[in-house]
């Protein structure tokens, strides 16, 4: 059983940048046995992908292996050249990439792309290659594979693209498959299907797999052995069970703690040491609004139709009290973002009204709303932190911007103080303030985005999937931050997400959207524990949880 397939020995990878050489991987050692599925987890930027690229020899021109060996079946991969290398790539090991749609050639029919891969390694006729490609499509469970052979990537859904990607990767029966976050771009339901497929295929063909992810839950579900990476090194390697039950390394501990489970609460998402501090915040009783106070936000029969096609949002009504947090969930395209942008008065609703603090704002054209005194009361945190900051503004500028615009502050010490105060509040180190967005990590960017949104003390904060692009440890920090803001400053939160675990933790109430309409709503825990509709149930079930119990037991 323990036949060693890949052995990475003290691997060092460096990138030449304008700051000189940057070491991305520093002394990584790892072994993979034939047929096993190994999980490689770690926070963003820890060098997981670079390790994968170094192993498959796909590093950019700027990157170089500066030390160590990558022995594949005893042969040092880093020294291969020309045909030997090509023989290795695809035929002996292959890789699956993060964003399936981008990873496929957009203007080549998928059948041809698979056939291309086959033809490079086998001397067979084109027709034979096509036939084989068709078989592969069947193998990855693509419906109606004959017709799909001629389809282009844009004609397929994300999940189907990922299957095609898998088909390409396994086309020549490699002995090792490196799957680099194969499901990040997919929504929860698809994620599960794809991962199951991958696991089945790997098992059926006896391929060894390295599953790179930062989702511990995912790794735990499919891998026996998990290696944890931090800053270019493996800091801990253990079976999944051991890792969760007794994490040794501090980083692993943090990671395990931050992974939400079906029952975890926000205060659970930190390691023991930090929990104390947070507990004091949570324990403060929240003021219940006096009975009879009008709701902060009231949305009546909101609808939005874009130029053509059916309504993106239809007949959406809700109310929110001050300091309340409401979750808005639903599959991709269900109208979550559209609704939140309408409530933020960034786009105009086609029908319906929005009443904020007793004033109707639904009819103020979004074009003019920037002049409204209520502008500063409704703020938004945008979906993708990478895109939500102006590339030409430093973090300081970003946070200062609403203060200057909406609070009428001028550049000067007062402004500086306010900005620093906001930064501190969201836990952003002050020395990051002069940086540009591209110099910040995703979590840092997210915090800048939140700092900006809370800078002028809004009463309603709309958050559009603020944590979707973050890894769990950062997500935990952000969630706690939001919860604290709500408790301390009495900000009402409208929290959009399709991660139900998170919603469950953060929100008092949840609204489930589908195709622009409300399917179900109610108190969060009750709703998730006892979904009334199939749709909600499916959403709930698809959440990967760290179930240290039965699944693993079954696998063992």
């Amino acid at each position: 059983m323990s036949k060693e397939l890949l052995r990475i020995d003290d691997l060092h990878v460096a990138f030449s940048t304008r700051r000189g050489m940057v070491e991305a991987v520093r002394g990584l050692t790892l072994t993979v046995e034939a047929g096993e599925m190994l999980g490689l987890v770690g926070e963003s930027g820890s060098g997981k992908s670079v390790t994968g690229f170094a192993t498959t020899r796909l590093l950019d021109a700027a990157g170089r292996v500066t030390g160590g060996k990558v022995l594949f079946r005893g042969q040092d991969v880093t020294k291969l050249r020309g045909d030997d290398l090509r023989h290795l790539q695809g035929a002996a090991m292959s890789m699956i990439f993060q964003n399936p749609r981008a990873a496929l050639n957009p203007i080549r029919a998928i059948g041809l792309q698979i056939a291309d891969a086959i033809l490079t390694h086998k001397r067979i006729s084109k027709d034979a290659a096509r036939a084989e490609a068709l078989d592969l499509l069947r193998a990855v469970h693509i419906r109606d594979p004959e017709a799909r052979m001629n389809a282009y990537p844009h004609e397929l859904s994300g999940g189907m693209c990922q299957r095609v990607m898998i088909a390409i990767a396994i086309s020549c029966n490699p002995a090792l498959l490196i799957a680099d976050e194969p499901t990040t771009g997919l929504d929860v339901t698809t994620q599960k299907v794809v991962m199951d497929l991958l696991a089945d295929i790997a098992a059926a063909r006896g391929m060894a797999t390295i599953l790179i992810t930062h989702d511990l839950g995912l790794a735990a579900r499919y891998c026996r052995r998990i290696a944890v990476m931090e800053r270019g090194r493996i800091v801990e390697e253990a079976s999944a069970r051991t890792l969760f039950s007794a994490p040794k390394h501090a980083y692993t501990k943090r990671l395990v703690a931050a992974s939400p489970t079906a029952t975890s609460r926000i205060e659970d998402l930190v390691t023991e040491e930090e929990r104390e501090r947070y507990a004091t915040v949570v324990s403060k009783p929240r003021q219940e609004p006096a009975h009879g106070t009008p709701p902060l936000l009231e949305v009546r029969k909101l609808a939005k139709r874009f130029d053509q096609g059916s309504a993106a949002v239809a007949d959406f009504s809700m109310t929110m009290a001050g300091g309340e947090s409401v979750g808005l969930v639903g599959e991709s395209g269900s109208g979550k973002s559209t609704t939140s942008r309408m409530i933020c008065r960034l786009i105009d609703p086609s029908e319906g009204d929005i009443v904020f603090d007793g004033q109707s704002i639904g009819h103020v054209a979004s074009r003019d709303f920037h002049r409204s005194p209520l502008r500063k009361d409704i703020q938004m945190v945008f979906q993708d932190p990478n895109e939500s900051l102006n590339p030409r503004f430093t973090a300081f500028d970003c946070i200062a911007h609403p203060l200057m615009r909406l609070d009428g502050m001028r550049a000067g010490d007062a402004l500086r103080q306010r900005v620093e105060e906001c930064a501190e509040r969201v836990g952003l180190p002050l020395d990051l303030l002069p940086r540009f967005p591209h110099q910040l990590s995703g979590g840092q960017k997210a915090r800048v985005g939140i700092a900006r949104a809370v800078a002028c003390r809004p009463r309603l904060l709309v958050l559009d999937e603020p944590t979707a692009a973050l890894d769990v440890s950062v997500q935990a920090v952000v969630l706690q931050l939001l919860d604290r803001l709500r408790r301390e400053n009495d900000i009402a939160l409208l929290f959009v997400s399709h991660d139900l675990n998170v919603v469950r933790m953060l929100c008092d109430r949840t609204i489930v959207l589908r195709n622009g309409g409300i399917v179900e709503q109610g108190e969060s825990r009750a709703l998730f524990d006892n979904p009334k509709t199939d749709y909600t149930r499916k959403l709930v079930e698809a959440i990967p949880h760290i179930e240290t119990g039965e699944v693993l037991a079954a696998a063992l």
Partner: protein
Amino acid sequence: MTSATLRHSVWILRGNPLTAVAAAGVTLFILLAIFGPWIVPYDPVVSNVSEALQPPSAAHLAGTDQLGRDVFSRLIIAARLDLAIAVSAVGISFVIGAVVGSFCGYAGGRLDRAVGRFVDVMMAFPLFVLAMAMVAALGNRIENIVIATAIINLPFYIRFARAEVNVRRNVGWVEAARACGESHFSVVLRFLLPNILPAMAVQISLNLGWAILNAAGLSFIGLGVKPPTPEWGIMVAEGARFISTGRWWLVAFPGLALMLAVLCFNLLGDGMRDILDPRMRT
């Protein structure tokens, strides 16, 4: 902030020697444009027919022209006008094009389509017909040459800006700016425009050279800058007449000046993109 920009620029220049050379070249041209009149050996417009058409020599580094004027001095003096033509022609079309294009790209819809059609009309219009009409209607002044050239370049900038803004208009930071109380107007001007600048730098650099060449082309068909003003394009156009009689210096030196200017602009444009793009900063 400014010192950071400076340091960043120095970094870019060091990493890309060709850009550094181009920057030096452009600086040289600018210096010539400013100090040209004080350093030229001869008055560029004073004729001396007895010395006409002399090949290059120690006295006349680049020879003399049909009227016995020193080609070298004319080349140097011309720098000012040529830079002015290039910069203003491109400046006008860039400013108008970028603003109009951005607004259209941002607004989308019917306005955008209408402007798109209009741009098509302009693109379909041959330069010289337009230039001719302008010059004929308003006289052959440098301004008109500049305006004609600017109008011809305009569609490219409009299209470019339009496309660039279009992909960014619903991006998070744009909406964030609006959530911070910016009007549509200032979102376009203060947020979107600066962000598409790096990408436009390349187009600008290409066009700077073209603007001068356009002036040359126009003077070839007789619509150029008025004589006896020295201008590279015209000097090339006039010198071209003497190619067949072997007076190569009349076309070679102005051509060389033109080439160096175009080259420097182009190379610098590539560098500018890197300098302007904050993403390249670390």
